[in-house]
């Protein structure tokens, strides 16, 4: 009952006033002093959980190059960042520069909280990533990183089962056959793991030759043969070649733990996990995800925007550009094994390929050849994602048939679109 003595109120005592004296600096956004120096604020989640020092390196380099600008960084955990960001936007206290995900871009842009960014040197960015943050030809945010989802595999388990390693030419059928051979329930070894979620589903629909939304984006299009194949593909793994939630004990990251414990042969996960998994005694590598009738990979990207209410838009944009495209950022990100910088400079990225385990880092870039972009629908984005994930989870638990799950998800998604 930790919330029992809850918000009430009271008398402002001397001690409370004394505490106010040692408060932090001005809350909202920028402040400028008389000598022309400006301080801008940057609110982020991308550095939380291990990359804080790497972000500091980038900030230091920026401040050295721009002595009249100081960047004040606030770092929040991913799980809480968006609650804080929305409260800030509602209160008009958003940082001058703030992080966002691609999935949230459309809602932010249409709400008018992002300042248009003019005069960005587009040549520094991968064009496809830069374009993702344009609306009606205007740039509203700058990509700060990207990752793709690939197929991780445990070499020792493949060797032991006498199965040949996955290649970029694998299809679902190959993956399924291998997963069945690799699963060894008595030893607690599972053949495959792929989250049963919206993000896996929309991609699987594309791999099966379908599309999650109709061409005009106004209707759900996944309740067809391709969608059914995709749902079946995900749901069918659960409990056969892949542990159910209860069999995995159910922490959010149990798939990672299963893989690093050497009990998982194949794992669909993102390139952001390379550093987390690191060197393992069993040896592991990655391959481009298998497709069905066609290849389709998921591309994730984060971005930064400049607040439309910022008092120092020019300085803020300078920082946003530096953070996303400077050579310092590119080298810091590559050296740290942080998510990849969105740079167009292929030669800089080349060093990434030789950074050690996994050996086949080329798969990260090969995945970009056939990307299925996640549908982005604005305000109802999160609700749509939750609905699809929940219905598929119900099918995996056997409480709905695949067809029922798709029917219900289609109805609800159409309601959200309409």
């Amino acid at each position, binding site marked *: 009952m930790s919330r029992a003595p809850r*918000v009430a109120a009271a008398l402002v005592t001397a001690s409370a006033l004394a505490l106010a004296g040692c408060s932090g600096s001005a809350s909202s956004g920028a402040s400028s002093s008389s000598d022309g120096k400006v301080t801008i604020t940057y609110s982020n989640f991308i550095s939380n959980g291990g990359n804080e020092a790497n972000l500091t390196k980038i900030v230091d380099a920026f401040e050295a190059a721009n002595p009249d600008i100081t960047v004040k960084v606030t770092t929040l955990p991913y799980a809480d960042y968006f609650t804080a960001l929305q409260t800030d936007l509602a209160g008009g206290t958003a940082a001058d520069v703030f992080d966002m995900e691609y999935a949230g871009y459309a809602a932010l842009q249409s709400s008018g909280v992002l300042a248009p960014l003019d005069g960005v040197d587009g040549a520094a960015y991968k064009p496809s990533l830069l374009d993702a943050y344009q609306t009606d030809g205007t740039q509203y945010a700058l990509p700060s990183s990207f990752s793709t989802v690939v197929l991780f595999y445990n070499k020792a388990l493949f060797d032991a089962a006498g199965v040949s390693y996955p290649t970029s030419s694998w299809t679902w059928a190959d993956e399924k056959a291998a997963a069945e051979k690799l699963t060894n329930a008595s030893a607690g070894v599972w053949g495959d793991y792929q989250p049963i979620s919206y993000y896996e589903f929309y991609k699987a629909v594309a791999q099966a030759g379908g599309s999650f939304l109709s061409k005009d984006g106004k209707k759900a299009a996944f309740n067809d043969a391709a969608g059914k194949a995709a749902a079946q593909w995900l749901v069918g793994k659960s409990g056969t070649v892949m542990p159910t939630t209860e069999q995995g004990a159910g922490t959010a990251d149990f798939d990672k733990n299963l893989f690093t414990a050497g009990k998982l042969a194949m794992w669909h996960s993102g390139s952001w996990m390379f550093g987390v998994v690191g060197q393992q005694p069993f040896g592991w590598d990655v391959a481009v995800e298998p497709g069905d009738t066609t290849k389709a990979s998921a591309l994730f990207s984060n971005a930064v925007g400049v607040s439309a209410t910022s008092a120092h838009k020019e300085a803020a944009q300078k920082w946003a550009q530096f953070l996303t495209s400077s050579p310092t950022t590119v080298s810091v990100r590559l050296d740290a094994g942080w998510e990849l910088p969105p740079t167009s400079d292929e030669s800089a990225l080349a060093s990434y390929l030789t950074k050690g385990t996994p050996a086949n880092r080329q798969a990260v870039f090969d995945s970009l050849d056939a990307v299925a972009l996640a549908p982005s629908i604005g305000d109802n984005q999160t609700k749509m994602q939750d609905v699809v994930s929940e219905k598929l989870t119900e099918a995996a638990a056997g409480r709905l048939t695949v067809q029922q799950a798709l029917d219900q998800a289609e109805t609800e998604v159409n309601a959200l679109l309409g």
Partner: protein
Amino acid sequence: MPRLSRPRAVLLWVVLALGALAMFFPFWWTVVTSLTSGAGLSSTPAIVPADPSWAGYAELFRRTPFARVVLNSAGLAVTTVVVQIVTSSLAAYVFARIEFPGRQVVFTAYLVTMMIPMQVLLVPLFVQMKTWGLVDTYLGVLLPGVASVFGIFLLRQAMSTVPRELDEAATIDGAGHLRIFGMVVMPLVRPAVATFAVFSFMSSWNSFLWPLVILRSAELKTLPLALASLVGQYSTRWDVLMAGSVVSVLPMLALYLVAQRHIIQGIAGTGLK
């Protein structure tokens, strides 16, 4: 309390001890997990860690500015406790000891403030704090919680059991309400005040959502915010997180044990009975 016969006392003790074991077990598992390094959390932990490691604790102190956040949290919690005891006991005295028309209505109006979820007040309260320039200040964290209806209610219930004859005697001696409050009633409700102090400290020490939105500067952040930042987007070092929650429990446990002594002394010390 009448003493139990010996066999009954033994039986009761055994039942209580078994219950305590069951109560303690989940906490013990968090301790075990905090000492279990690295992976292996995909299965349930052992009763005793096979290979205990302090790495989780070392990593905790490396990843968080621990001294700083503990100091921030402690300062806020102590201030909250002191202020809440003052404001709550004054109000509780009125509700328990002074008859006036509309007392029940006013008291209900107080209780009403506990019935709206904090989650929905977050945005309006934040906007208000912003207009007063209190975003990213300790005062902004403290203000919404300087008094507590929970405390007022708890102390009111305690004060209403203090025999009326005592105030009447004091009134005849010429004492005003302030003296009756301070010299007669407050000493008699010390167990309740000590109990409230524990809960008041706890709620401030654990509070998360409001500090999350109102505090920006790293140097102002509190312990729960620091612990939350240990939960990663893609993976979490559970040993570090569990170490953090074990460490954050200790001050509250110490406070409870100290307060418990006060609860007993509160009675013994009055010389009333």
